[in-house]
């Protein structure tokens, strides 16, 4: 018996491929993508690497102190956003908020918080509270509320509708159903997402340091400005170790939660 013959690809597929290729050509030109420049400029990189190595381990103590600050920024930026993310998440989830006005408003607030990058929040808060880690914490709280609130709202919407229906039939209100059926069911996913956000926020707080919000990012920025690339490399090694450790920790806890 002959297998069914394969269908010829439709003209739509060719059009899609042609458009994708076209967009990539435009992007290549738009970004000034030029491998030649990279080859010609190898000497600049060689100079840079020559100055960067061996790393100056004399700043290791400062580096570790600043890394702890970076972790603190990521930690507070995550935990202090929990109450706001929880409130807005519950209000921005269809299963817990039947009122469509409330739902739309909560979703809009989350969208705004999410679409303003944390670096922009940091620049704003630096002007208010000055340079330092506190501005970084505030920036993360605002941005992370937007992201985590949305992730939590979506997790709530994916819960089994059965227990909600059962409690509704028993006369429970929307808020009672949220507290007694939705949140208990979704708690492991919420904790998993929280750890994932902690992981992301520690990495973000490095970037926030570059704009003056304290932590090890600030040291990296300073060493670049002073052309002390050997010190910068020490900071970057510490950053890599911290990021890997946080990543491993959050992956480990999430694995434990899944079982």
């Amino acid at each position: 018996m002959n297998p069914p013959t394969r269908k010829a690809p439709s003209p739509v597929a060719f059009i899609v491929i042609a458009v994708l290729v076209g967009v990539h050509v435009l992007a290549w030109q738009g970004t000034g993508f030029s491998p030649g420049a990279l080859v010609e400029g190898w000497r600049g990189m060689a100079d840079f690497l020559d100055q960067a190595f061996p790393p100056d381990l004399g700043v290791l103590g400062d580096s570790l102190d600043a890394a702890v600050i970076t972790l603190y920024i990521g930690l507070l930026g995550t935990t202090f956003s929990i109450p706001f993310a929880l409130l807005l998440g519950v209000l921005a989830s269809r299963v817990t908020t039947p009122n469509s006005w409330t739902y739309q408003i909560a979703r809009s607030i989350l969208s705004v918080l999410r679409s303003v990058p944390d670096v922009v929040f940091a620049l704003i808060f630096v002007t208010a509270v000055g340079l330092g880690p506190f501005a970084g914490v505030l920036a993360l709280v605002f941005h992370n509320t937007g992201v985590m609130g949305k992730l939590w709202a979506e997790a709530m919407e994916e819960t089994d509708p059965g227990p909600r229906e059962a409690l509704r039939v028993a006369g429970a209100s929307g808020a009672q159903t949220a507290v007694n059926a939705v949140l208990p069911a979704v708690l492991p996913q919420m904790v998993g997402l929280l750890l994932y956000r902690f992981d992301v926020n520690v990495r973000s707080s490095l970037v926030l340091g570059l704009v003056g919000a304290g932590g090890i990012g600030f040291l990296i920025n300073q060493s670049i400005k002073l052309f002390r690339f050997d010190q910068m490399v020490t900071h970057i090694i510490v950053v890599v170790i911290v990021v890997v450790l946080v990543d491993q920790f959050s992956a480990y806890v999430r694995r434990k939660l899944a079982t």
Partner: protein
Amino acid sequence: MGIQITGLRKSFAGKQVLAGVDLTVAPGEFVAVLGANGSGKSTVLRCAVGLQRPDSGTVDIDGGAAMVFQQIHLVGRRSALDNVCSGALGRLKLRQSLVFSRDIRREAMDCLDRVGLADRAGDRAGRLSGGQQQRVAIARALCQRAKVILADEPVSALDPSAAEQVVSLLASLAEEGLAVLAVLHQPELAQRFAHRIVGLNQGKVAFETTAAAMDTQAVNSLYEGAR
């Protein structure tokens, strides 16, 4: 009075599912509804409890109705006791439903005791067997303090011995004075435990009989008609 359903009609997208159903269950009575898939059994219950709005007809319920589902619908991660407590939510304020009071927990414990699961109160609902979970769901219905229990295929997902245990529990609750209306798929369980049996066919009551007088032929014809 228990529950009195009169002239219930319901159509979905132009297709008539209930064509005027009359049904009464008195306090202390256990009535089983038999019928093929699509005969309208579940729709009767869902209309009765307010999950669906009938096109016409009336449902009179004395003292509130609680619902037990085929898919059980417990929160698997919560303890059996917390699941039972949540049956009381309808009479609690929001602030009382964040952490259940000692009184509610004690009442829920009594309900669990009535279904024979007081010793599993602290276990996560998801860890219990299917039959135990359905009994917890019945305890939740009891904690609602309803006088009428509506059970929509409560044992269709259970193995035969668990099914028998659950149906016999429903029968004993009727003995205690509740009005119990259960959709079943097992005529023999209906005959053994229910007082009255109602056969539903194409949205109409095809027959209504005492369990003792149940006519096997009539029951079989319910399922043949659907083929």
